[in-house]
């Protein structure tokens, strides 16, 4: 019993090392063209070089800034507008059909027009990340606000809560657990849209570096960029998960 438990645990810690070992084996055993599919050791060395030159940190800094700004703007607007559309039928009916029409358009489809509108400025990158995050957070908030337990709202009104305080005191906290699910999904989405944003013409960033490395046939650099994107996105997701367990612990 305890042995089985230990093995279960062990599997968790071995998951990533085993994956890397398999990757290493496939590349170095000559099963594939090692030039096109470099081993993790090669990728690590390439990453190390770009770290030493400082390029990696510039790319990381640029990409993170874009994600943070676009995410913050998208999440803030998504929550604010979601509360309004979810709570007030008039506003909801006015905005929901338009949003449902715009929501399914993949952000990458906006790249050409964003270049026309914003040129190669940072504003365009922020806009694309904002676009991806906004609709995800908006729909989660909209639905969450509509599904807040009506009895809690009744209880609050019976306790003399004035209408203008109802949203802050009951609706928002009541909707928070579901809003946080949307916020967490939006973390991953912000990294997807970051890639689209950086392919839209820029001078630094993780996805930009992948594109440049591709043009120079630096496969190790390319895979290094992919690894960094994965690591960043996963770290952000884990961090957010921990944060939400602290902030909406009652859910």
């Amino acid at each position, binding site marked *: 019993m305890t042995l089985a438990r230990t093995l279960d645990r062990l599997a968790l810690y071995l998951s990533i090392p085993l994956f890397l070992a398999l990757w290493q084996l496939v590349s170095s055993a000559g099963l594939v063209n090692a030039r096109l599919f470099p081993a993790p050791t090669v990728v690590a060395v390439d990453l190390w070089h770009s770290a030493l030159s400082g390029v990696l940190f510039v790319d990381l800094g640029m990409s993170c800034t874009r994600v943070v700004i676009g995410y913050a703007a998208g999440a803030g607007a998504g929550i604010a507008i979601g509360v309004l559309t979810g709570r007030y039928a008039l506003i909801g009916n006015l905005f929901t059909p338009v949003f449902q029409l715009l929501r399914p358009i993949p952000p990458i489809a906006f790249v050409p027009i964003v270049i026309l509108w914003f040129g190669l400025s940072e504003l365009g990158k922020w806009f694309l990340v904002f676009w991806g995050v906004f609709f995800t957070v908006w729909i989660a908030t909209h639905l969450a606000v509509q599904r807040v337990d009506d009895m809690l709202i009744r209880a609050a009104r019976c306790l003399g809560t004035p209408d203008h305080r109802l949203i802050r005191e009951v609706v928002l*906290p009541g909707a928070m657990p579901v809003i946080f699910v949307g916020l967490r999904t939006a973390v991953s989405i912000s990294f997807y849209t970051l890639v689209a944003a950086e392919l839209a013409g820029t001078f630094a960033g993780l996805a930009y570096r992948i594109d440049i490395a591709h043009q120079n046939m630096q496969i190790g650099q390319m895979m290094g960029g992919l690894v960094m994107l994965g690591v960043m996105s996963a770290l952000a997701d884990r961090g957010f998960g921990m944060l939400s367990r602290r902030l909406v612990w*009652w859910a």
Partner: protein
Amino acid sequence: MLSLVRPAKPGSVSAQPTAPTPRRGHVVIDRLRVSFGAGDQARVAIDDLSLDVPPGEFVCILGPSGCGKSTVLNAIAGFMSPGSGRLAVDGEPVAKPGADRGMVFQQPTLFPWKTVLENIAFGPLMSGRAWADAESTARSFMGMVGLLGFEKHYPAQLSGGMQQRVGIARALANHPRVLLMDEPFGALDAQTRAMMQEALLGIWNEFHTTVLFVTHDIDEAVFLGDRVVVMSASPGRILADIRGELPRPRVPDIAFTPEFIRIKKQCFDLIRTESLRAFEQQTQGRGA
């Protein structure tokens, strides 16, 4: 006998102004009529219901399920506008929900993100009182429902009976004119329910707030109320308004006295007839 209401600690509970103010809380329901739906689908839930509850009285509204008992409370709470008729508390017509009418629901409906103390202090805070003031009020009511020491707990950490005590304390912390209770002990097990009934009477003894207590449990209605108002199956009307001669304070043994059994029998016969009628109505409705 174990007392559920913790003995008042000098300076804590009694610091609250607990002088009975029985001149507040006069509830008048005058020819209330409520229907749901419209056109062919319209169903009369309450038909021509009048009730006058003097300040400080404990009235139990008893009836078979679906008779519109809860609708009466919801109307007084201000959650729905009556089709016709008049509702007033101390002469003021009921327009919308307000702090003067406290409500305790069947489910405790506490705010899960607030501590026990914050839940109880919520009403006073919403009435514009400062936190320190609201907090001291909340603490005194926590003492009254026997929850001192649980200030920092969250609702999910409490048992169902304890949660419902918080619900009662939260409603009372606003010093409402009338306390509306909608089968508050219906979801509790029999032992907890009996304890909660005694605890409730203990608290009521301090305040003599007007109470409208809805239940389908005959024993509960007879044990708690000064009056038992028996309602008919849909549409809801008043079948009987029974005022017994049971002494207060009520002790559990009172259930074995002839007077208790007399009232209980009277209620039982009325409810049984009504339940059968309601059942026939439903089955006929299906067949048609």
